[in-house]
C-alpha cells in the first residue's frame, strides 16, 4: 500500500469522524440548550424539548452508529484496506 493512498484513507476517515462528532455535539448538547424554546412545541403529546432528551437524541445516536459503520466500511473498501478485500 502506497503512502499517498494511506494518507488519503486517513484523511477521509478523519473527515467522517469529524462529521459524526459534529452530529453528536448537536444532538448531545446543542439541541438540549434550546429546551425552553422547544418545549413550546408539542410532539406526540410530549413537549418537544423533553421528547428530544428522552427519546429523540437516543434514536439519532442508534441510527448514526449503523450509518457510521457502513460509511467507514465504504472508505476502507475504496482504499483497499478493508479486511476481506
Amino acid at each position, binding site marked *: 500500500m502506497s503512502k499517498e493512498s494511506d494518507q488519503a484513507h486517513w484523511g477521509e476517515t478523519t473527515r467522517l469522524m469529524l462529521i459524526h462528532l459534529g452530529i453528536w455535539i448537536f444532538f448531545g448538547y446543542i439541541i438540549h440548550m434550546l429546551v425552553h424554546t422547544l418545549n413550546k412545541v408539542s410532539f406526540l403529546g*410530549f413537549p418537544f424539548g*423533553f421528547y428530544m432528551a428522552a*427519546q429523540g437524541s437516543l434514536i439519532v445516536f442508534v441510527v448514526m*452508529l449503523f450509518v457510521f459503520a457502513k460509511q*467507514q*466500511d465504504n472508505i476502507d473498501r475504496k482504499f483497499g484496506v478493508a479486511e476481506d478485500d
Partner: protein
Amino acid sequence: MATQTATTSQFTRQLGRLYGTYTGGFLGFIILLAILEQVGVPNRIIGYLFVFFTLAIYAIIGVVTRTAQLSEYYVAGRRVPAFYNGMATGADWMSAASFVGMAGSLFLQGYDGIAWVLGWTGGFVLVSILVGPYLRKFGAYTVPDFMSHRFGGNFARFLAVIVLVSCSFTYVTAQIYGTGLIASRFLGMPFEIAVFAGLVGILACAMLGGMRAVTWTQIAQYIVLIVAYLTPIVILSTKHYGIPIPELTYGLAIQEITAREQELVRQGLAVLCTPENCAPGTLKPHIQPFTTWTPLNYFGIIFCMMVGTASLPHILMRYFTTPSVREARVSVGWSLFFIFLLYFSAPAYAAFSKLEVYTNIIGRDISQLRPWLFTWGELGLIQICGKNAVNLDTVIAACKAIAGHPGVVRFQDFVINTDVIVLSTPEIAGLPYVISGLVAAGGLAAALSTADGLLLAIANALSHDVYYKMLDPNAPTIRRLTVARVLLFFVAVIAAYLASTRPSDILAMVGWAFSLAMAGNFPALVLGIWWKRCTTLGAVFGIIAGFGLCLFYLVTSRYFPQAGVTYFGMTSLLNPETGKPLVNVAQIMADPKWLADVPASAVNPLNNRVGWFNLNNINCGLLGMPLGFVVMIVVSLLDKEPSKEMQAFVDEIRKPRGKTVLQEKD
C-alpha cells in the same frame, strides 16, 4: 477464507437456534410459574423458583464454556458476532443502577434526570468513531496492553492499571451490593447471606471460562433483563391507554402529570419550587429543566458520562472479542440499540409511577390509601407524614400528629425511595406476583452481568498486565490461567465482603468512576490513536496530571472542604433553583465537624458543597480531561518525535486489513 466464512455463518446460525430456544424456554417458564401461582403456590416459592432457575442457567453456561486457552479466556477467541456482542455489551453496561435506580431518578428529578439517560447512551458514538475499532485492530487483551505498547512499556501500563482498578473496583462492589439487595428483598434472605449468594452466582459464570463464559452468560442475562423490564410497563400502558407501546403513550401521562401538578398547587396540597423558595418538599414540575442541576452541571453530567463510557475498560474490552474490525463497529451499533430498548423505556416508568402517586396517593383521604404501598413501607422505602408507611393505622397516627394536617396526603408528606419505582410497578398495575418475580430476576441479571464484566476487567489487568507482563513474562499458559482465576476469586471475595458491610460512601462513588476513567484514559487513548506525534513522556505526564486533578477535586471538595476553602480558593456551590449559596463558608471554617452535620442528598450522597466554578464533584472529569489533553500535547511537542517504528505502528492500527498488531502466544 471461503471455508472460514462458511463456518462463521454456520456458527451464527447455531447461536440463533440456541438463544432462540433459550428465549422460548424462558417465556415458557414464566407461563408455567404464572399457572403455578393461579393454582395456589405461594409467592415466596415463585420468587425462589425464578431466582434459582435463572442463576442455575447462568452457572450451567459458565461451566459448559470453561476453557484452558488464553485467547478464549481473555477475549472469547475473538469470534463473537456483532449482534451477540451487542447484547452482551448491553448486559455488561446496564447495571443494577440502570435497571432499578434510573427510573427512580427520573421520577424524582423529572427532566433533569434525563441527563443520565443521555449520558449513558451517547458515549457509544465516541466508542465507535474514536477508540473501539482501533483497539480491536491492535489486538490487545486489556486496555493497559495498548497503553504499554503505544507509550513505551511498563510504566504506562502500570498507570493504566491504577486508573482501571480505581474506576472499576467501587463499581463492582456496588453491583454485588445490588445483587444482595434484590435477593434479600424478594427472597427474604438476610442481606449478608444474599450478598454471598450473589458472589457464588458471579464466580460460577466467570471463573472457569473467563471472557468466553462471561460473554455467553451476558447474552442470556440480557434476554432475561429486557423481558423483565419491558413486560410490566407494556401491560401498564395497554391498561391505561390501550396501546402496548409505553414509549409512545407516556406523552399523555406527562400531560396529565403537568395538569395534576397545577391542580395540587391550586388546592394547596403542594408548594411550588420557585427561585424564592425551593426547600426540600416543594414540588418541582416534571418537565421543568434545570431545577436539580444547574445547566453547567446538567451538561457536565451528560458529557462526563458519555466520555466516561468511551474510557471504561470493561466496556472497551467487549469490542476485543469480535471477529473483525468491521464487526466491532457494527457491534457498537447493536450495543446501543439493545441499551436503548431499556433506556428509552425508563422515562415511561417514571411517568406512569408519578401519575399513580399524584392521582391515587397525593390528594387522597388518608383512609383510602392503596394497599400496595404498605409492603414497601414495611421495608422502610415509603414514608408518609415522616413515618414508615407500615400500615394504615401508623399513617393515620403520624399525620394526626402534625398540627393542622388536612387529613388528605399532601405532596410534602410523601417520601419514596427511588428503587421502589421499578420494583413496585407490577403491584401498582395490579399484576400477579409472577411479574414481580420476573422483575426481581431481571434486576439480578443486570447486577450479575455488570459485576462479571467488571470483575473480569480488574482480574485480567492484575493477571495479564501486572503478573504476566510485569512480574513473570516467562510464565507458562497453565500458570497464567491459574493466577487469573485465583485473582478473580480474591477480588470478588474482597468486593463481596466490602458490599456486605453496606459502605454508603463506596456505593455512591460509582458515579465518580466515569469522571476518573475519562480523566485518566480518554486523552491517552484518543491521542495515542489520532496523533502520531504524541510521545511516551507526554502521555505519562498527561495521565498523571488529568487523573490526579480529578481525584484531587473529588477528595478535597467532599472530604476536606475546609482545606479546599483555605488553600485552594473553593467557594460554596449554588442552589440551582434559587441561586443562593448551599452553605455558609464562614460557618464551615469555624466548625471542624461541619461535614458530619450536612444531610446526605438523596440524588447524589457524595455531592460536594464547596468547589470551583459551581461544579459538582461528579463532573470532575471536566477539569481533569482538558488538563490531561493540554499536558499531553505540550509535553509531547517539547519531547522529540516518536520513532519511525512507533509511527508505523500507529499507521497499522488505523487500517482494518491485516493481522492484529499484537500477536499473543497461546
